[in-house]
């Protein structure tokens, strides 16, 4: 069947099961948009208001649904506007296929209008990229793109298509890619390593499981619980691992890292064995690596061989998919219990509760604290919502206080720490999982980085709830300035616009809470409303997030105040 390159692209996407595209048209991608016009009944295209919005939306969509997120952008500025999202998806292992238009091939390298070397620019931040200059290549390259994006450790793929390739004809035939000889996404599990790991696990006295996003990406939630329950080993979660385990599970001991819970951080240096599953020992988790896990042997279950021994030396490395590794590991370990050890975590929890949590969630002061807002939302939604956060204090507070109960519910920019992520990611998340409540929790700084996406939410009536925790500060930077830069608040205070007037302008229902007594009712209305809703909560201006492991210090030095 003879079709144009553009039509071949749309047909290829349909072959891959794509039903949603986030994008923004422009000159060099117009033939593709023209082809899309004929397929409107088969594929839903969401027009965002900025390419960065499109890619973060695709990320949110992917992370809640497990599908590959797809976005379109034009050449030049359209393509460069995707880069932040691509880098974010790369470091947080999110499968994306980004399609960018490119100037006609005879103009490549001539500084033509809206030409940028997006292949060169995106090289260090994509899992794979490729420039198509002939329409003949389209089906094969698109099938490769999807295979690479979603297999193994997932990541973003960028395909740049010159305008002439979009226009010219080809005979369309599609075959799904199943193999690339130079690419081996699923390492063969080494049974001996599994046995070595089982031996260490059976001998350990104070073991601890570190749950990373790899558990979610490999759908190993059930196996993880089985492993923890059989071995009796407590589980702590990284930021991106949150929601893999229900926060209510008896073996769940909390959140790791710089603003994580007290117990899992201090116990890192008291445990004798770490079983790290699908996580990469980010510096926000480890603090000073020379003083990390000082008494522990480390078992690392990790699909990406380049992550093994990258930061922390392992005793046993199981280079495999997390689910596959756990399925093989569970029958090899003994049934045990570590009640005494788990109780030590509970004692830490009590200390943290008395020193921090109690004062925050039962705050008697008139000013509203971020923690009490998040806690109320967590209780009201019973931990069942998808929570999308931006970057900063509100993100850390949400990670600490939202009690996730269902997998794939914590959508946040972890590795890259991209402010502006939450609003577009939330709209993408809602489209990816329409049946679930999606709540975006965003600071007053972050929302202004992608605030234009309120228009997208309004146009498509995407029922996301948007909570602004508004302290008129870039709060996390201010906190560091207070603690480590001698209170020199260099350019962190903001005179904000009236977010409610802005929300009115976008025709999104909204409310503002300034007084504590209005908070409960406002949150209830916010949660129960059907449709998009923006709630602007004015919180304490100079609140600090604790506990805190100061940057570059040992996790043992976690500060409670």
């Amino acid at each position, binding site marked *: 069947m003879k079709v144009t390159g553009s039509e071949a692209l749309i047909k290829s996407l349909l072959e891959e099961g794509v039903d949603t595209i986030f994008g923004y048209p422009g000159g060099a991608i117009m033939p593709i948009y023209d082809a899309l016009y004929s397929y409107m009944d088969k594929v839903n295209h969401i027009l965002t208001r900025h390419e960065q919005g499109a890619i973060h939306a695709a990320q949110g969509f992917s992370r809640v649904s497990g599908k590959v997120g797809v976005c379109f952008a034009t050449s030049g500025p359209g393509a460069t506007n995707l880069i932040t999202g691509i880098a974010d998806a790369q470091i947080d292992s999110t499968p994306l296929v980004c399609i960018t238009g490119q100037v006609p091939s005879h103009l490549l390298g001539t500084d033509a209008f809206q030409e940028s070397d997006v292949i060169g620019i995106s090289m260090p931040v994509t*899992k*794979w990229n490729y420039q198509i200059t002939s329409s003949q290549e389209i089906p094969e390259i698109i099938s490769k793109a999807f295979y690479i994006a979603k*297999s193994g450790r997932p990541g973003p793929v960028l395909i740049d298509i010159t305008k002439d390739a979009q226009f010219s004809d080809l005979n369309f035939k599609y075959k799904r890619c199943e193999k690339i000889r130079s690419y081996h*996404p699923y390492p063969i599990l080494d049974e001996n390593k599994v046995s070595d790991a089982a031996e260490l696990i059976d001998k350990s006295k104070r073991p601890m499981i570190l749950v990373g996003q790899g558990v979610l990406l490999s759908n190993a939630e059930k196996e993880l619980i089985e492993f923890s329950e059989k071995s009796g080993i407590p589980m702590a979660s990284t930021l991106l691992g949150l929601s893999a385990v229900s926060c209510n599970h008896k073996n769940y001991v909390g959140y790791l890292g710089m603003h994580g819970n007290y117990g899992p951080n201090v116990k890192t240096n008291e445990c004798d064995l770490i079983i790290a599953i699908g996580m990469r020992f980010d510096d926000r988790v480890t603090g000073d690596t020379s003083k990390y896990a000082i008494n522990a042997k480390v078992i690392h279950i990790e699909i990406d061989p380049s992550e093994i021994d990258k930061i922390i030396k392992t005793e046993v490395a199981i280079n495999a998919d997390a689910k596959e590794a756990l399925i093989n590991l569970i029958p090899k370990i003994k049934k045990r219990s570590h009640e005494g050890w788990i109780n030590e975590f509970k004692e830490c929890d009590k200390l943290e509760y008395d020193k921090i949590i109690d004062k925050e969630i039962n705050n008697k002061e008139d000013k509203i604290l971020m923690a009490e807002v998040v806690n109320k939302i967590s209780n009201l939604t019973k931990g069942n919502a998808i929570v999308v956060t931006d970057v900063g204090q509100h993100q850390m507070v949400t990670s600490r206080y939202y009690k996730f109960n269902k997998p794939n519910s914590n959508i946040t920019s972890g590795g890259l720490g991209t402010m502006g992520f939450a609003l577009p990611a939330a709209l993408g998340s809602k489209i990816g999982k329409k049946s679930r409540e999606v709540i975006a929790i965003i600071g007053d700084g972050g929302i202004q980085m992608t605030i234009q996406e309120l228009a997208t939410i309004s146009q498509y009536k995407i029922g996301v709830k948007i909570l602004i925790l508004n302290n008129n500060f870039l709060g996390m930077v201010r906190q560091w300035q207070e603690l480590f830069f001698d209170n020199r608040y260099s350019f962190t205070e903001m005179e904000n616009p009236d977010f409610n007037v802005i929300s009115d302008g976008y025709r999104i229902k909204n409310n503002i809470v300034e007084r504590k007594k209005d908070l409960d009712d406002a949150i209830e209305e916010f949660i129960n409303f059907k449709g998009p809703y923006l709630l602007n909560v004015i919180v304490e201006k100079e609140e600090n997030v604790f506990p805190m492991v100061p940057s570059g210090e040992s996790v043992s030095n976690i500060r409670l105040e």
Partner: protein
Amino acid sequence: MKGKGIYQVKGSEKKVKEYTLSVLTEDKAGLLNHITIIFNRRKMNIKSLNVSTTEVNGVSRFTIVVNSTKEKIIKILNHINKLIDVLGAFLYEENEIYFQEIALYKLSTKIFMKGDIVEKIIRKHGAKILEIEEEHTIIQKTGSKKETQNLYNDLDKFGGILEFARSGRVALSKKKRKTINFLKELEKTKSNKLNI
């Protein structure tokens, strides 16, 4: 050492040594850039680089020489192995490979007129006269960097070196392996899909 897959170092090897990486890749545009940015990101200088075809059609070989600790270079190697179009990256120390570089020396032909001393030097070093022109003469020497440098130093005493160029290292492993068999192994593996 194997190509794709996991490389681990036991203990911590902090000694800086010369390492040769031999990277087999699909013959794709842009790969050189892909590989060099991995070094650049970690601020590691490449001492020598050579890209060439291999005996297998469509397969290229990158030979890269660096000074590094084993720990550092293994992290880089693992990253190179992660590139989609890389078939396999191999790490070698000097005693594990046959390797050569080639150097060309452009000398003023006049210095040959000063008796046979220059000729003796060339003979001593096992170098070869490639071309004699009225103005200049081209000498060619293959060997290790040290050997080509020794010849340079000897010739330099006469002040007649007009231009000098040295190639990147080319190296082949002392192992029995054949590229084609390595590729066959790659194609046989079941690591293309999840086996559960």
